[in-house]
């Protein structure tokens, strides 16, 4: 199933889709794959696989810690693609979440080709604007890949429209102004942003940044088409005593969140 089909199915079931993030290579390539599979088994509909990068300026301390560890362990782009392949085999859409430079360095066309042949669904690019995507968009389209860009509460209506236009799969709506990390409250800004975006696009709108439990997921699911969870999954892994326990904890969290997106 591709990403759009997942969102259609969720809509048909009158619920939001659940999107779960982990960086590749943490605690190891195999350990990361196991955890992602546990998340899929527990109800994650779309997987985001982070490409560990040395300068993750959109990420808070939790994701930074995991990404640092993954890089120290030698994780590189080929391991990310291997992780994509393993998750894609489950039939769940797997998108890579990457800062732009690693893709640029790998070669935009080569990355699109290798991601597609690994079975990847597409990529989320938090520091690439559609304005600068003259290479990425044609390459992604040529390989039938989703392109997900971000909108933020500070985005003008004009920029929301321009960004949504370039998105395929879904539009990533940042819930608050800030970096990744769990928050007690997921701001009202998200609802306003989604409402503004609704007026200009048919593409599904998924909200991320700060969501950590089923109740928050339910709240977001009441107005958005998808709920994105990252740091909370990573925290499960960071706090676990063993990789197996981390995967179990991530699976348990996924089950709570999956129930949440059905409680809208």
């Amino acid at each position, binding site marked *: 199933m591709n990403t759009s089909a997942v969102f259609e199915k969720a809509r048909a079931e009158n619920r939001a889709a659940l999107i779960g993030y982990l960086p590749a290579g943490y605690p190891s390539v195999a350990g990361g794959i196991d955890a992602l599979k546990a998340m899929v088994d527990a109800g994650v509909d779309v997987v985001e696989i982070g490409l560990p990068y040395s*300068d993750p300026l959109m990420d808070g301390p939790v994701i930074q810690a995991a990404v640092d560890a993954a890089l120290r362990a030698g994780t590189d782009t080929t391991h990310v693609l291997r992780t994509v392949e393993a998750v894609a085999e489950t039939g769940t859409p797997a998108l890579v979440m990457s800062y732009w430079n690693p893709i640029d360095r790998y070669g935009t066309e080569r990355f699109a080709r290798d991601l597609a042949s690994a079975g990847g669904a597409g990529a989320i690019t938090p520091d690439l604007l559609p304005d600068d995507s003259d290479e990425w968009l044609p390459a992604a389209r040529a390989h039938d890949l989703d392109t997900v860009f971000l909108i933020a509460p500070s985005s003008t209506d004009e920029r929301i429209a321009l960004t949504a236009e370039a998105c395929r799969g879904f539009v990533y709506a940042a819930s608050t102004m800030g970096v990744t990390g769990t928050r007690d409250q997921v701001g009202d800004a998200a609802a306003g942003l989604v409402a503004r975006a609704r007026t200009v696009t048919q593409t599904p709108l998924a909200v991320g940044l700060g969501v950590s439990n089923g109740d928050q997921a339910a709240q977001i699911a009441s107005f958005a088409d998808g709920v994105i969870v990252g740091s909370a999954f990573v925290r499960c892994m960071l706090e676990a005593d063993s990789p197996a326990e981390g995967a179990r904890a991530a699976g348990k969290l996924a089950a709570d969140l999956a129930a949440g997106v059905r409680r809208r």
Partner: protein
Amino acid sequence: MEPPVSESSVTSGPGSVGRPGGADRPGRFGPYGGRYVPEALIAALDELDREYQSAAADPAFQAELDGLLRSYSGRPTPVTEVARFGAEAAHGARVLLKREDLNHTGSHKINNVLGQALLTKRIGKRRVIAETGAGQHGVATATAAALMGLECVIYMGEEDTRRQALNVARMELLGATVIPVSTGSRTLKDAINEALRDWVTNVATTNYVFGTVAGPHPFPTLVRDLQRIIGVEARQQVLELTGRLPDAVAACVGGGSNAIGIFHAFVDDADVKLYGFEAGGDGVASGRHAATITAGAPGVLHGARSYLLQDEFGQTIESHSISAGLDYPGVGPEHSWLKDSGRAIYQPVDDAEAMEAFRLLCRTEGIIPAIESAHALAGVRRLGAELGPDAVILVNLSGRGDKDVDTAAKWFGLMEQ
């Protein structure tokens, strides 16, 4: 005669000589520059760009900035001919130093910061943040914040807070909060990451006073225009002193602000050679250096496309230099374009060469330079050999060495470790 300050501040808008070959989009220098940042920052960058354009066209803003540069920072800074240094180091060529070391707070960084702090007030924000490596930009920002009554937070790599403890104390004395950054390599690049994270979170109340000509648009243009004053003054001063233009202009390159500041007024003078000297650390071959243009490859770091030190997978490689102010794996996009277009030449100077030039200037002229600036002085030794005794070489002495006495004393074995 004093060169006029007024014509030298914010004057060159988009499409100026700083973009040889022209750019089809704002903030682009050929293929370099642009904005590679989270969408959440775009509104703030647009606001900054808009306010800057309007300030640049506003005589009242200009007058206020010119007044501060004159009465607070001490501009215009003099040009000093250093004959003994020229004889010893440059094969007898005439060496002229543009004395940015004589600015208030001890370096060129104040030129940029006064302009950006005024812009912050104009935008109506009350809080400024900045990154700092050596601490010079942090001190300058803390100074301007104190002067203008702004709250000030400085991000500094934990490693650098140790190397430059005195500057941490200076910033705190000035009322700033210094936050040590313990992520990544714990140096300047990580301080920039952390400052950008703060900015994304607090953008409604906060302005980011970026310290060099790197980062997302409009910073490379904005900071360049605020630093142009160096070259505008120097060009006229050299003409008055020697009756002609210099054969070469030399500057050290970290992010590239002092270099672009002195280069810019000479870009259209085709006979004036422009030389940027990067930090060669232990030597480029050793892999431990900060020679971004010499040894790096184009890519994206901190919001702009430019040369950077990166591995085959696009991960940033940590830089090394005895000079904290040059210890940065990136460089401003306009330098990348000046390099590719052949208009400027960039060469590495290693730690040992820089320290030798540092000592030579102390001994021959009674001027203790910043170690950053000593890289440019070391470059002059090569230029002297190349250009001969009739040459006139203008060097940007970007800062003074008070902050570096500890490092230098250790290097030369004057102190117990």
